[in-house]
């Protein structure tokens, strides 16, 4: 077994300086390991810190203490201490992230939003777009929308574009924050398929799934967070 993510004694407290320095302790001493081929579910009530933990793994949130080691290029990189260009390299080649909402880039058509992670690792344009098209079809985004910028799409359409983008580059590690939250049953089934496929390709996934059906279908293990 290959450990793809190792978290040791991670702690996070938000300090709100604009509100009199209020401290919001989120978690302390969080530890976990994720191996290739499994899908670990972060489980717990609203506010328990699931999204915060995922964001820490991705280097989007800075923990107060502890270590996060991410498998990259055959070695482990401590994402909490890596400099920006190292984190960017890890994100390009080793770790993807599907946030709960798409952050649309002005003027960039949906097809290219999805193709972008592939372009970033040097995949030729036509090949990148072909993979993007496959994913958009699988996620049932009508072809007439592919050439439009997602800013005007519905919430569910934007989320599916976001999911397609997350799966495009087949990163060895993938983080998912409630990817099915705004999807109907048929689209949920497609996402379940994508996750199952990723597991069979020995990729490591960490996700938050509020939907019992999705969680039961994809999860190999639960990591419970109390908050």
């Amino acid at each position: 077994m290959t450990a793809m993510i190792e978290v040791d004694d991670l702690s996070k407290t938000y300090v709100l300086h604009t509100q009199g320095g209020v401290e919001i302790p989120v978690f302390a001493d969080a530890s976990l390991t994720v191996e290739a081929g499994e899908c670990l579910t972060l489980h717990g009530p609203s506010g328990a810190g699931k999204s915060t933990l995922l964001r820490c793994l991705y280097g989007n949130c800075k923990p107060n203490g502890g270590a996060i080691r991410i498998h990259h290029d055959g070695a482990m990189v401590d994402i909490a201490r890596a400099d920006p260009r190292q984190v960017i390299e890890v994100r390009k080649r080793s770790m993807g992230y599907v946030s709960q909402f798409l952050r649309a880039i002005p003027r960039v058509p949906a097809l290219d939003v999805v193709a972008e992670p592939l372009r970033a690792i040097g995949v030729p344009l036509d090949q990148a777009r072909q993979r993007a098209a496959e994913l958009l079809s699988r996620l049932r985004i009508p072809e007439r929308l592919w050439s439009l910028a997602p800013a005007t799409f519905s919430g569910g359409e934007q989320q599916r574009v976001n999911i397609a983008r997350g799966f495009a580059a087949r990163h060895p590690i993938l983080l998912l924050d409630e990817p099915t939250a705004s999807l109907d049953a048929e689209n949920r089934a497609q996402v379940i398929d994508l996750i199952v496929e990723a597991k069979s390709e020995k990729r490591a996934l960490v996700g938050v799934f509020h939907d019992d059906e999705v969680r039961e279908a994809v999860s190999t293990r639960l990591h419970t967070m109390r908050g």
Partner: protein
Amino acid sequence: MSPLLQVSGLTRLYGDRVGCKDVGFELWPGEVMGIVGESGSGKTTLLNCLSARLEPTSGTVAYDTREEGLTDIYAMGEPRRRMLMRTDWGIVHQNPRDGLRMGVSAGANVGERLMAVGARHYGRIRAQAAEWLEQVEIDTGRIDDLPLTFSGGMLQRLQIARNLVTHPRLVFMDEPTGGLDVSVQARLLDLLRRLVTDLGLAAIVVTHDLAVARLLAHRLMVMQGGEVVETGLTDQVLDDPHHPYTQLLVSSVLQP
């Protein structure tokens, strides 16, 4: 590999007023760094010190020259510094009129930079100028028009073409989207994002607009009162700001 720019202890005072104070960082090839902060925080002062246009009071700026590696830009002679500015660097001014020659045609504005680095063949210079006008989405039919007849957004795109035609390794930009309509801004941003990625440019971009910083910059430096108060990966600084001033900055806009 070595950094493109290595800056340490950089301070510029205006009499007893602080322009910027004790700034240090390294910029690597292909990296885009954003400098954000409120008006008067020292962004332009710092950018001018970095781009050889304003002598610092103390500290050093070393640039990775092709011949000798990291070299202090203020210790090298004026001719070498000028050559560097013409070949390796691009400077995009906030007001395109400061970066363009308003009395010569659009094509000449772009071609001039090529001639400054030794191009002589008229046909090839014109062809390259036309190609760059196309790159920045200016109708090539306008190649012989004076910039005076261009809109603000077109002028800014022309300035970008003039700077990028010589394939610089490092571009300095001061509020590149300032003073433009929102829709024109979006188009310019999209263009800059594409060019920076396609050409693998390193860039330092001063902006007071956090949305612009998020779109263009890999990493951010937040300035307050001439000092750098927070640095890091762009999305981390904007989504999980730690310094009180950064939190204030981020919380004052709708969606940074």
